[in-house]
């Protein structure tokens, strides 16, 4: 009962944070809303028994990627977003589009629901479980990840560094 209540509370926080992220005009407020979304997602993972994933969500998304966002906003002195006619059009088309989209997704999920339920915590949520999966069953994807990271390093440096 308490479990479900907490799950719903964090879910609501995540959704409110996400809406606030779009509604705010100043980029730093938007970035911090996204941090709140990441934090409540981490709490959701924790509640589902995926504790390792929850911790990683905080360390990587809230603690590294969002720091990069905030840094960029601080460095570039990005000001408040300006409303144009295009953004009005986006609101008029976007909001009904979003509603239709989420209703369609919910409908598809309810239709596809077979009634089989996965008990909380039965997924490979612990660090040991993830380690086992990652380094035994999904070895090739893991090694390819390192190539991906390598490309990310190179791309970042090439983009950011001015040749002197």
């Amino acid at each position, binding site marked *: 009962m308490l479990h479900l209540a907490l799950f719903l509370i964090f879910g609501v926080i995540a959704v409110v944070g996400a809406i606030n992220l779009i509604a705010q005009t100043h980029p*730093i407020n938007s970035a911090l809303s996204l941090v709140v979304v990441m934090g409540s997602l981490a709490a959701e993972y924790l509640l589902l028994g995926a504790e390792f994933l929850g911790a990683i969500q905080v*360390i990587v998304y809230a603690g590294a990627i969002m720091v990069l966002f905030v840094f960029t906003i601080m460095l570039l002195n990005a000001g408040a977003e300006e409303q144009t006619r295009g953004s009005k059009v986006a609101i008029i088309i976007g909001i009904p589009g979003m509603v239709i989209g989420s209703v369609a997704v919910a409908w598809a999920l309810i239709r596809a629901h077979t009634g089989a339920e996965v008990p909380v915590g039965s997924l490979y949520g612990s660090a040991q479980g993830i380690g086992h999966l990652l380094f035994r069953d999904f070895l090739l994807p893991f090694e390819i990840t390192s190539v991906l990271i390598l490309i990310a390093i190179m791309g970042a440096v090439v983009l950011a560094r001015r040749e002197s």
Partner: protein
Amino acid sequence: MPTGNLSVTTFVIASIIKIAIVLWVLLTAVAYTVWLERKVVGHIQNRWGPTRVGPFGLLQPLADGLKFIFKEDLTPPYVHKFLYILAPMLALSMSLIAICLIPFGNSVNIAGMNIPLQITDTNIALLIILGITSIAVYGVALAGWSSNSKYSLLGGLRASAQMISYEVALGLSLVGVLILCGTFSLHGIVEAQTGTWFGFIPKWNIFKGQFIAFFIYIMAAYAETNRIPFDLPEAETELVAGYHTEYSSMKFAMFFMAEYSNMVTVACLASILFLGGWTGPVFGPPILHALLPIFWFALRVLFFIFVYIWVRGTLPRFRYDQLMSFAWKFLLPLAIANVMITALVVALRS
């Protein structure tokens, strides 16, 4: 599971009591770390340090606290008000939350209940602390940005760049310990270090070959807490007070407390990860059995805090480019090498 045979209400009440005690001890420790620092640095510089308030100036922290509360608080009109107020609270709360996971000793039996001497332990305790450390960057960055002062912004940028740079080395230095202990639980990490070789060399991680990791951890921790020789963010000769230049009164006190409570947490973690936590000779009646581990633990923490202060009284400050290349060109490769060597040695031995 800490609940064990306790009911939910007892569990919650026990947690609240533990939190109250730990918070009280932590805040007192923070206050007296400040006192100790002023005293020790004073003696290093051939001064007396605080002497006026109480015997040996022991009531000085109390006087400081009162002064912080009664000082006028200036909120400049140019600041981003919400973030300006949020930043010090964020910094302080993140530095306090980490203490939740620190084990101060094994468990004690009180009225038939087995109570572990820590607020809580989880399977991923170490990762939670790392997560908290990575969130703590926001406190500093937002303080610098929201103040709308050049000193603050530069200080905030420097501080956050420094913290994230050393976070990589900090994280990598823990991998060796994790290989040896095979768990993220801090209680488990201490348990893995009990016992001795030949009856007198304790099986601490630092003696299991993790001395390089210990060195990296200490360096990174000094940088993470913005202490000398890495206190560039608040280098007073160039940046006045860095990211908290525009803060006064209680909000400044929060940054101040955050720094010292971070020092305490880092000292606790260093003792747990590398120096065997609360392990030590235990003898005598049951009451000593319960108290001696806490004493051994406190002794280690005090040692680390003393070294912190000693370093502050001794070393000059790095230049910023030296600071950055120390993190990226020295500590990072050293940490990766340490991971590989530890893995090789463990593989060869098994």
